[in-house]
């Protein structure tokens, strides 16, 4: 079981699912009949990447609470990795979203609720990084970062529900009440891509967390050797 959940195993599972999902998206799922047409194919990775980013920020949120409760620096490392991977996926969401926006709406960017709140989340989590870099003392940095990660996470549900509470925006509701309505073959391809992307996010988080632990080991060894 432990081997099945190791980073390399998760990478393999994620790769297989993402390749199968995208092949199905292009050759099994029909081309969207609305004005989006072929550009709707971006949806199969764009939405799972956005979901993975939210989950990664959720990992950082849970790790922040765990750190404040236990003061164990391992949680700080997990939180740091969660934010880093959340930002990585957010960059991909913004980039693919802008391309899709240009294709579907004719503009690269629109100041509408979903996009604006997502951009705000990106800025907040970028600020988390800046905060970490300006505090030198280890425990103080971890505490400030944990508090900031909890505050920043408030924007995540706001972003998620923005399209539901403010439906006048351009961005459609994709999954859940009032949205979706996906045809069977589209839903199958989408579900496979979603599971694959979440596994990829888990694999990268797991691997990067292990890297952070190795970095701590290097720091400990340097300290014990007196330099």
């Amino acid at each position: 079981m432990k081997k099945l959940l190791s980073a390399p195993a998760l990478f393999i599972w994620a790769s297989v699912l993402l390749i199968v999902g995208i092949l199905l998206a292009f050759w099994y799922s029909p081309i969207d009949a609305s004005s989006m047409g072929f550009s709707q194919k971006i949806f199969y990775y764009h939405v799972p990447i956005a979901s993975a980013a939210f989950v990664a920020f959720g990992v950082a949120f849970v790790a922040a609470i765990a750190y404040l409760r236990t003061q164990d620096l391992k949680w700080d490392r997990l939180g740091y990795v969660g934010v880093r991977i959340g930002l990585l996926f957010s960059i991909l969401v913004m980039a693919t979203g802008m391309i899709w926006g240009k294709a579907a709406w004719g503009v690269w960017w629109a100041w509408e609720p979903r996009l604006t709140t997502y951009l705000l989340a990106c800025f907040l989590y970028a600020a988390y990084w800046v905060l970490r870099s300006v505090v030198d003392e280890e425990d103080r940095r971890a505490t400030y970062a944990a508090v900031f990660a909890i505050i920043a996470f408030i924007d995540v549900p706001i972003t998620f529900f923005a399209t539901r509470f403010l439906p006048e925006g351009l961005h459609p509701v994709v999954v859940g009440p009032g949205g979706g309505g996906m045809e069977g073959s589209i839903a199958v391809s989408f579900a496979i891509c979603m599971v694959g992307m979440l596994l990829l996010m888990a694999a990268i988080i797991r691997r990067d967390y292990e890297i952070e632990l190795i970095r701590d080991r290097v720091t400990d060894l340097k300290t014990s050797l007196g330099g």
Partner: protein
Amino acid sequence: MTIEEGVKYVAAAYAIILAVLVIYYVMSARRVATLQRDVQLLEDEAKRLKAPAGEAGAE
């Protein structure tokens, strides 16, 4: 939007995803290699310092 018009946007989006993930993977792999080398060097150094003086001298 025709398929021909849509293809360039779809290709660009997937190319960006692939490029960013590959770049991140390569950077990550380099970071791991550097850290593992550092750990190895530091562990060797720690062992050398812990070794008895006579043994160290004989070497």
